[in-house]
């Protein structure tokens, strides 16, 4: 007898079937998100001629980059069941630091960029320490970090923009230059996609990614299985911080200056993108591809609406409705698969 009395071959077959169904369901979810993106693009293209002009499309992509990068990092955090409110102003601080590294400190460009990213990693690591080691709830720890970063950005910059116009090729290489002849797509977009691929690989193919899901699914059980949850959580926040740092670098390059006052609110846009992309705030579930689509949906929506000259206030309303829809769809899907 097998251990499961009723486990005849028929059962194995039904296991196989349900496994396939699960897989179908999760790809369906992504398909759905992708379909919504496509529908939005088609809708705006029909509604306005200027929408589908290559220049505008490239504009949309460019405007996705910073939020998109932040969203990539925060996908990790949200899958662990945490939240990171510090990424918006953290990005601003990284932006200021990158500019300071390259100008005041006179670092060579690539070293400055690397240090900018590492600075983001450091912010992430501090978040991770506060959360994993001192057991401060993520919401509180990163809320505090959000204020600290906002303040430091102003202090370090002396509340004035820090210009990087003297750094040769910075803006071109890291933001606006177009490396592929004949294509209007700027480099920053390629950086976003490269970062997304790296994030995707880390999340689905590495040990760190596995523990990200595992912690989000059941933190206590993960710890009881002999995984050093404290250590890994710090690493996960650190990795997320790298993306914040990279976002800071790109933001600086794009404007060829660090703007010390901004960033507040970007974290919520990034979180919105992650949620629209199907990642659950309860943790344990989510994908990078979903997040990328989520970020694109947000960008297309804002761009499309402003092209149709819908006022900013109403754009916000629209984004809010989209978030609600996305989450509700997720709840429906969950109910379906709970059966």
């Amino acid at each position, binding site marked *: 007898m*097998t251990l*499961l*009395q009723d*486990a005849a071959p028929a059962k194995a077959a039904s296991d196989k079937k349900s496994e396939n169904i699960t897989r179908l369901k999760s790809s369906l979810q992504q398909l759905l998100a992708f379909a919504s993106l496509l529908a939005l693009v088609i809708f705006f293209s029909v509604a306005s001629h200027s929408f589908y002009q290559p220049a505008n499309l490239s504009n949309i992509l460019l405007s996705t980059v910073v939020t998109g990068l932040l969203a990539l990092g925060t996908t990790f955090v949200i899958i662990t069941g945490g939240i990171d409110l510090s990424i918006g102003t953290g990005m601003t601080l990284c932006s200021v630091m990158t500019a300071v590294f390259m100008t005041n400190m006179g670092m060579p460009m690539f070293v400055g960029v690397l240090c900018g990213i590492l600075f983001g990693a450091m912010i992430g690591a501090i978040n991770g320490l506060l959360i994993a080691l001192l057991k401060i709830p993520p919401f509180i720890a990163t809320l505090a970090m959000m204020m600290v970063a906002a303040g430091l950005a102003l202090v370090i910059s002396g509340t004035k923009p820090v210009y990087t116009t003297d750094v040769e090729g910075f803006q071109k290489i890291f933001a606006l230059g177009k490396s592929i002849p004949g294509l209007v797509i700027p480099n920053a977009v390629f950086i976003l996609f490269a970062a997304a691929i790296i994030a995707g690989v880390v999340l689905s193919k590495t040990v760190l990614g596995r523990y990200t899901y*595992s912690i*989000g699914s059941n933190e206590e059980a993960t710890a009881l299985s002999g995984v*050093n949850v404290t250590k890994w959580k710090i690493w996960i926040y650190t990795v997320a911080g790298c993306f914040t740092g990279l976002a800071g670098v790109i933001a600086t390059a794009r404007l060829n200056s660090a703007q010390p006052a901004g960033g507040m609110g970007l974290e919520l846009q990034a979180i919105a993108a992650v949620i629209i992309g199907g990642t659950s705030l309860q943790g344990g579930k989510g994908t990078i591809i979903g997040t990328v689509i989520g970020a694109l949906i947000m960008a297309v929506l804002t761009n499309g609406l402003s092209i149709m000259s819908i006022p900013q206030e109403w754009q916000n309303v629209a984004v809010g409705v989209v978030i609600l829809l996305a989450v509700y769809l997720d709840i429906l899907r969950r109910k379906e698969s709970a059966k």
Partner: protein
Amino acid sequence: MSSELLKISGVSKSFPGVKALSDMQLELRGGEVLALVGENGAGKSTLMKLLSGIYVPDEGRFVVDGEPVVIGGTKHAQELGISIIHQEFNLMPDLTVAQNIYIGREPRIGGIFLSETAMNRKAQFLFDKININLNPKQRVGELTVAKQQMVEIAKALSYKSKILIMDEPTAALNDAEVATLHDLIRNFIKPTTGVIYISHRMDELKAISNRITVIRDGQYIDTVDTATTTMPEVITLMVGREISGEQRPVAAPSSSETVLKVSGLSTKELLKDVSFDLKRGEILGFAGLMGAGRTEVARAIVGADKMSAGTVELNGKAVAMSNPAVAADLGVGYLSEDRKHLGLMLERDVKDNIALSSLKRFSKLGFLNNPAMKAASEEYVATLRIKTPSIAQAAKNLSGGNQQKIVIAKWLVRDCDILIFDEPTRGIDVGAKEEIYALLNQLAATGKSIIMISSELPEVLRMSHRIAVMAEGRIAGFLASAEATQENIMELATRTAAGARTTETPAGVQG
């Protein structure tokens, strides 16, 4: 044979307000299964958590393989060759079976990349070796409770440890599954390995253990040889008093009035044409193998699952119970088998857990009547012998068995006319089982009707006026209390739709 694998002595552990263990001792020899028994809250799980590095003892000596050790954490315990199956599930529902088993030691490529194929192959190899039927790639959240338990067992066996601790591994299994688990254990046992086995099912201690260590109220009582000791003797050691024995219920309920009539109940997934009725004051037992559909019947009746066909009548009137809250308002209560997730608010205290689902009873104009809530909670804490320092203790700090009792108390407070108990005594100690049996009988005598789903045949036989036996989503037959035996129940339970008995798959482990 009697090489000493593990010896602990003078171990104490306190929690705020509770002395969970004092001057505890225990000795595990190579090649043996040592059963550890004691009432709910006696300190069994706490002791095992000390051994597996989850808690740090206040004091005590631990000797593993002749070497004194200080167990520094879960990983250290694993390195010492100690692995544990916890009383509560410790699984990641969003990960697959194989991912759960190999978490923390997944096959890697170059140190950081995962090799999913290697891991699935390893898992499949393990399942084939120990002869359990699991799909490595299935998400654990989709598995039934019993299959999740299999995952836990496979995980513990995969560590190749010397000392295997099982904290109530069979609480969620039926008799046949228990038998095969015992075979797994016998295969595991070698002169250099040992098992500590915690269970409240007295019948299985005889079958599996070599010696039995009894503890009571955090203190060591005695260790006896299983072969030369009778179960009543063990029970007396455990509870410190005698427990009255088995009695069959009165032949028939006092009334013949039908309170619940279910006809043609079917669901998309499993159930086919389930019909039965329940009389006032009747205890109707539901027996069957795991997966036969007993829980599904209960869930469909109270509206937790959708039915695809069939009707439910309460007191002669057709009703639609669209969800369990509606069902409870109509006087039908369902105590789910998965209590930890569906039945308790772990962070809240005992009183809230008992009273919160019947707030209507405890409030006036929206204001809570706290004294009444307290009184009711105190009352049930006393009747069910729930071991807790006070009713203000958070539910998560109670022992597993005492958490179960809280869920039962909660439904008793709710005062439903029809109560569906799904595995009501799972994980509950012998003494308290008797109290619960007495309570069920008393409820039935006062005109409440009870459906009792249980995988423990002796319990079904003892408690039920009538027994419905399910097989493959159908009711295979009814047995009256007087004619029912373990044999004829099993005969019905293994009868398939075609009338043939299930043909069994691979040879090897014999159930």
